[in-house]
């Protein structure tokens, strides 16, 4: 059994939370737009998103959090039914 006795020193651990590195801001030049009628809820985009900004809702399909999405396009690449299109930002 291990006893956790708090440490008085700094340790290089962190609790992950949404937006800890700040919002994406205005530099994203393309964004993923989901055609939910074609989305099969396969979850691949959610799994592959490197910034964890996609949630697949069984009812609504893939939902992108544009506050943190960097527009890398990995989701559009992995989508097996081409339901995600990268659209230029206005």
């Amino acid at each position, binding site marked *: 059994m*291990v006893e956790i*006795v708090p440490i*008085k020193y*700094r340790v*290089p*651990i962190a609790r992950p939370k949404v937006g800890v590195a700040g919002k994406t801001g205005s530099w994203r030049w393309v964004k993923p737009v989901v055609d939910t009628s074609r989305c099969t809820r396969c979850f691949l985009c959610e799994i592959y998103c490197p910034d964890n900004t996609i949630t697949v809702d069984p009812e609504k399909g893939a939902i992108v959090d544009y506050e943190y999405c960097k527009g890398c396009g990995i989701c559009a690449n992995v989508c097996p039914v081409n339901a995600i299109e990268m659209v230029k930002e206005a």
Partner: protein
Amino acid sequence: MPKTVLTGNYTVALAAKMARVEVVAAYPITPQTSIVEKLADYIDRGELDAIMIRVESEHSALAATFGAAVAGARAFTATSSHGLLYMHEWVHWTSRARIPVVMAIVTRALAPPWNIWSDHQDILGQRDTGWIIGFAMDNQEVFDMTVQAFKISEDPRVYLPVMIGLDAFTLSHTSMPVDVPEQEELDKWLGPRRQGYVIDGSEPLALGNLAWPEDTEEFFMDLQRGMEEAKNVIREVDESYGRFFGRRYGGLIHRYRCGDAKYHVIAMGAWSGDLMEAVDMLREDGYPVGLIRMRFIRPYPDREMYELLSGSKGAIVFDRAISYGSLGPIYLDVVANMARYTRRLPYIRNIVAGIGGVNVTYSDFYKLVKETIDDLEKGVEPSVFTWYHRR
């Protein structure tokens, strides 16, 4: 307490077992292998309730040990020579993450040329990693230091990993009677594992994220503070172990016939035993010499060394490793740390010897120390650096 005849390696294994290690991850390398073989044997016989992770390299051995320790297990590994070098990246990870781990290093020369005998180049090459580094002189101390290592490493004032050095073959494969405490007494003394944080999947935690330079520097300033506190913790652990089991070594250093010594010799590891013989012979011949044996090189016992050496008429540091292009690593520490206390340095000589396992006996030590003292008494200072070699 029963005495058992054990090799150095079997002593390490028994100490790890009696410390109730829960995870052992290891890769075989001469001359360490029989430590983890014995631990595997204990597990196989049901005498030790632990998981043995057989990995594909030493890099993975320490990574797995580290992972198990982060998750809350009392974890242990052992290696030698090139295995330790291969681990080097994880050696840093473990200390910088402030994770208690104990690792035995059966010291062995580095190649090429290929060599399996002892010198201290491998372990002293890890000097700057933030690990506490202890070194035993005989198998009794191997036992005591291994169990003490867990206590030191898991102290909340320290939370740093500990390496225990023992010389290849001279200790690792040589038997001597070892006083083994009762399991119940040892459990009472050692207590349960403690650590500062646990990452076991019950809540999301990230280890080793990107940090800004100022934050990063503060982590490492804390590591230095932990090392400073470890000096006291090592002294305390030596004392409390002495109260329980009757053996005290003197903390960070072992003083042998230093009480009235005018001259000092300094060494670390198994050959300190030969040096003790030489000191006894020299004492019989009227030479007032004492031995300072380095039990711990990290943290460095700066105060003890200053107190002993400030009044010395002359000292010799015997190094079983060399910082090529400079001097022996222990010598560099001894001399540099004197500057923390004084501008007046006694004559301190550095003799590098025993590299690649060259046997240095009590008669070599007797001759070297006697000649040095004779010269100093005549007002002649022998050259500060000597690489002593013979066939």
